[in-house]
């Protein structure tokens, strides 16, 4: 009965805590406005090459 060991329940408990933390983290970031336009900035900038003579073909 592997799944009845106390250590396994400890593992389940840890996963539960992790899930909770993830949710808190997501909600917090939502409130702080992380999911705005601002944080998508880098993906547009990386499309632009700033060195000369770049090859775009």
């Amino acid at each position: 009965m592997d799944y009845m060991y106390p250590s396994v329940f400890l593992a389940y408990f840890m996963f539960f805590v992790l899930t909770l933390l993830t949710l808190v983290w997501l909600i917090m970031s939502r409130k702080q406005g992380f999911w705005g336009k601002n944080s998508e900035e880098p993906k547009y900038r990386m499309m632009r090459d700033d060195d000369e003579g770049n090859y775009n073909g």
Partner: protein
Amino acid sequence: MPEDTSRVQASPSISAGGAAVVHEDTTAKWFLISSIAYFFIVGIIAVTIAAKFVWPQLLGTVQYLTYGRLRPLHVNGMLFGWLLAADMGLAFYLIPRLCGVKLWSEKLGVATAALWNVIVLGAVVMLLMGYNQGLEYAELPTWEDVLVVIAWIMFGLNIFMTIASRKYDQMYVSIWYIMGTILWTAFVYLTGNFAVLFATGVNQANLNWMYVHNAVGLIFTPIGLALAYYYIPKASNSPLHSHKLSMIGFWSLAFVYVWTGAHHMLHGPISQWLQTISIAFSVMLLIPVWAVVYNFFATMQGQWHQLRENVPLKFLMSGVVFYLLTCFQGPMHSLRTVNAIVSKTDWIPGHAHMAVLGAFSFFAIAGTYYTVPRMFKCKLFSDTLANWSFWFLMVGGLGFFVTLWLGGFWQGWQWNNVSIPFIDTVKALQPVWLVRFFSGILMFTGIVSFAYNILATIVGAKDNPEAA
């Protein structure tokens, strides 16, 4: 390659033009050239050991060329000589561009490349002579390990100093992944090559598997994804779907991967609770993987037609599919029931090759095809040959993966039926190994056409300058 500039120009932030930075790329060039040379040389060894499965007497009386010595050379040569070196070379190309500044020190970079070559050539001699430490992925003797650490510090210093002096505040996701690679590799490598020396038996095995698993998970995965995150938007000329989603993929990878080492010893002589933890975290790996893969597919939305013409994009997107598959297999065969069938069979090399060749080498090849003409400011030698190299690697790779999965599953069933003598399970796999050998030949042809194409591009760069 069809140009779709309208999409890029529609984005809000592409208007401002910064001062032009001239990148030298000397380091990137040296790393790429030497890694491609090793790709070719180690490819010969790969085909040889595949042949030894079919003709076990082949080169059998030469002790320096016996299977047990060529296999570590194949693994170390491909991982460190080709893939990691190519990844480092491409990192040296893309980090300065993403930061908008020059590389911190080209001299240090070239010295790193030189040291890396010393390490790889030393490894060839040591492994053929039989100086093998006996730990998987950590076969090289300690003096080599010390050199690797020094080279890694040189690489890390150079990249970190470049990032620290970056022009743009927010870091693009590729920078994150490369930073993560450098940090995690340092500790993973120290564990796998130095900490193991102070342990025996199961203690040592646990450290060893932590290293083996994270060599793939926290070295090749993050640096490979860094390349994919850079080259997929670049090669398809479409901005990444979501930068925020990529962050979720990054942080969940950082947290989840390191726990899974013990799944290499499922059912083995290692504590059950540790096996259970490793299984649970292996399944959780689906989170970072699907976050990443969704992002790539969504980036390609409406752009799939580009796959017809665009060879780097072909490599990239089939690499993404292989990445998705390999990272679905991983969690699945860490489940105890599935593991009882596939573990220790030929399924495993099929799985490992799909990760390292199918996904991460494809990313590196795509990066090379995209980068080399830009670094040398010329056109690729032949787009047709590049297309052929893709199909050779693709068909050879698929032949390799699929036959080994089927063969491995079959082998696992046979092993679990104790009425079949072991030697009969060996004989049964002969056809599988024959197909694997011919798939290997196809893949090697792909490597040769890739290497030749790049070489011819570099050699012909001066005669064939691209009109700017």
